[in-house]
């Protein structure tokens, strides 16, 4: 870029990531108690678990930092959060153990994001998902979709779907669907598919006049919700033709999930900002403080009348600064907001899915992450100078992976974990068989699963009558250790508990 003569065009910021310190940060998160301040995130423990394991994987440090026995323990913990009616709890804190019954089960539901994170973490641990109650999970997933196509977070009293209208839940729900059944449509394991068309329609209606996507129709566009929607469309293979890796068609009736791709790209490009912290922000309720030096994108070539901020002060701004100051370009989540580490992920990953990453100032975006919110003790803070936290540390790292930093493994932008993890998933034999991949012929069940009886389907609001005869129930056939290629190629034996019987609680 001509205006950035100070930066070598081929600059790869590998030297800027203090890999050893990041690894130490994550090892502390893994092996010691998280400080009590995380209590307010207790309900999100499976999300925190995912970030910790996946960060170490992205840094190539998962296997060197853990023993096979520890990884088996981590998997056991995750499976202990598996819910008797499918899916996973968000944390062990709602589990009533032996006291669980029909009257109290609504206070201990499975949780949509937790389920996506549990499955993802298990994949990264080298677990082959053999102990996941897949059919129960798919049935529960059907119950989690609303009439309007959106997904909720949990099932409450009387099957009421709780948790707000929010593209995050659609993202996690379709992520679960992708992990368990790929792009396959129709009935799988005797369970019908979710209503893909309605979900796509829901996303289309959530696109805003400025090109972003919001949590629900007419709400404000937000980079996190837009990422979730675009990844959902990727999981559903419903991006516009020519975008992303999946170009196959089902006749000409497929509805593309984006109403205006160019406008969405423009909206994402506009998330780039050099307003990097609150003091520099033009959007705070304090006085207008953006200056030539700090607020390039809000430089407001104001003519004469000028009352843009809350105060009555006149906002005087000059021409753009010299190019040398444009080394750091961060991302905000909405127009006129301050940059925040996590939006580097939401924006870069979305643009990667759309095949438009090169339209960002990707060199300066890396430099922003490495120079500003990266913390001296490892990890990333939300804003420059903030202490690191698990959420921003993970998304900052993952964003660097998308941006091609060579100290971080390449990232699958939709799955939000390494491409290595995505390959582990794709190579799972049960999944290849389920998807009917050539060379994986066999029955549509795991080799060590056995059909023993039929059960009534309970799909909520879904016509499953046609599938009744296909309802099957699987029981693990005793413990069979399985050799799994795990992590960076190390071979490990994942033990299988024989007590994990599917569809408990029926």
């Amino acid at each position: 870029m001509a205006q950035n003569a100070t930066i070598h065009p081929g600059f790869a910021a590998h030297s800027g990531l203090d890999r050893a310190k990041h690894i130490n940060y994550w090892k502390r998160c893994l092996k010691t108690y998280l400080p009590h301040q995380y209590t307010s995130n207790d309900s999100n423990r499976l999300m925190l678990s995912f970030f910790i394991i996946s960060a170490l994987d992205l840094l190539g440090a998962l296997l060197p930092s853990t023993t096979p026995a520890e990884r088996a323990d981590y998997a056991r913990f995750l499976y202990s959060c598996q819910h008797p009616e499918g899916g996973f709890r968000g944390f062990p804190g709602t589990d009533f153990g032996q006291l669980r019954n029909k009257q109290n089960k609504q206070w201990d539901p499975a949780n949509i994001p937790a389920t996506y994170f549990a499955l993802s973490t298990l994949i990264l641990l080298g677990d082959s998902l053999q102990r996941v109650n897949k059919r129960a999970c798919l049935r529960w997933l059907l119950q989690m979709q609303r009439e309007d196509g959106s997904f909720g977070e949990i099932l409450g009293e009387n099957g009421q779907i709780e948790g707000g209208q929010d593209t995050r839940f659609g993202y996690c729900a379709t992520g679960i669907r992708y992990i368990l059944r790929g792009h396959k449509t129709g009935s799988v394991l005797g369970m019908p598919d979710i209503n893909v068309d309605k979900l796509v329609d829901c996303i289309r209606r959530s696109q805003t006049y400025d090109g972003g996507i919001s949590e629900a129709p007419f709400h404000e566009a937000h980079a996190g919700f837009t990422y979730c929607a675009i990844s959902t469309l990727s999981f559903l293979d419903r991006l516009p033709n020519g975008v992303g890796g999946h170009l196959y068609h089902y006749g000409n009736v497929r509805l593309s999930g984006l109403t205006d791709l160019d406008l969405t790209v423009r909206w994402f490009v506009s998330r780039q900002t050099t307003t990097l912290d609150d003091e520099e922000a033009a959007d705070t309720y304090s006085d207008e403080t953006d200056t030539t030096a700090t607020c390039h994108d809000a430089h407001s070539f104001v003519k004469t009348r000028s009352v843009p901020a809350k105060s009555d002060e006149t906002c005087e701004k000059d021409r753009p600064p010299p190019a040398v100051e444009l080394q750091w370009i961060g991302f905000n989540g909405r127009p006129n907001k301050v940059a925040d580490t996590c939006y580097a992920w939401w924006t870069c990953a979305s643009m990667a899915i759309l095949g438009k990453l090169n339209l960002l100032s990707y060199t300066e975006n890396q430099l922003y992450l490495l120079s500003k919110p990266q913390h001296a003790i490892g990890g990333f803070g939300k804003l420059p100078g903030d202490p690191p936290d698990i959420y921003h540390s993970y998304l900052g790292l993952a964003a660097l992976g998308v941006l091609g930093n060579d100290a971080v493994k390449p990232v699958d932008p939709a799955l939000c974990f390494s491409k290595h993890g995505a390959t582990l998933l794709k190579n799972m034999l049960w999944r290849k068989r389920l998807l009917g991949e050539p060379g994986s012929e066999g029955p549509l069940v795991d080799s060590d699963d056995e059909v023993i009886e039929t059960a009534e389907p309970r799909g909520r609001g879904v016509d499953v009558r046609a599938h009744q005869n296909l309802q099957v129930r699987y029981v693990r056939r005793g413990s069979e250790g399985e050799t799994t290629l795990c992590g960076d190629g190390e071979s490990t034996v994942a033990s299988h508990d024989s007590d994990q019987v599917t569809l408990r609680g029926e």
Partner: protein
Amino acid sequence: MGVYSDDPLWADVEPLPQDDGGPNPLAAIAYTDEYSEAMSYLRAVMASNDMSERVLSLTEDIISMNPAHYTVWLYRARVLLTLKKDLKEEIAWLNPTALNYQKNYQIWHHRQTIIDALDSPEGEAEFIAQMFERDAKNYHVWSYRQWLVKRFDIDDESELKAIDELLRADVRNNSAWNHRWFVVFGRHEGDSLDETVLERELKYAQAAIYLAPQNQSPWNYVRGLLRKYNKPLSTIKPFATEFASLDHPDDVHSSHALDVLADIYEGEGTKADAAKALDLLAQKYDPIRANYWTYRKFLLGFPPEPDHPIFHHHNY
């Protein structure tokens, strides 16, 4: 020894400790004794569906430590409704709680449940104004406000007036612009488009642009309006030219005006002019998006040098 175990009110409850599923659980948190104890009592009362008064103080205690607990709020709402408690008191308790946990989703859902049951929006406008004093772009509050407007069919005029006040305070408040769009178009889907509304809204957004020409929110609003009404962008060519002109490349007052002009020139077929506007953006007036402007120029048939960053290989 603990708050609950020492209290005779809880003597009949057998606390239910947490089971972390074996050694080496993930993301284990150094819980305080207070939290561990309260959670053990919460599990016990939830397990027995205890709907007594004491549950309210217990849930309040949990919420103060873990407001994101996704069933404690539902449980609390069930107890409140079962005991037929005065829901106005609940709102009085919720107000300071919401101010303390501004980014919490569950609080707003709970508020929705309670206000829905009260069947009156009385006091809500004042509370929302209080929240906006802390953060006028709080996403949860704006989402809740949309629900409130729809639930109680609050009239357009009072909403537009409230938005106008917020925009007078901060013309860059994109949340307020978005809410304006919702009020104007969100509740009247299917209605035929009223040209007088277009005129009114164009005038409003253009007045805001005069105040702060570099503010992207009203420019986006204007583009959205023209798209909605199927009007060409050239409708605002004279307006955009007030802020940028290729004849005066050193006297540009808004990069967004240049962007609009680039689109207009492209539509008019004067690609060379569009390319000039994009060059000005890439090199001078919006260099942080230089790759994007270069790409736009490329789409017009003006490719950059072959080793330009937009051609670099990314593995996606």
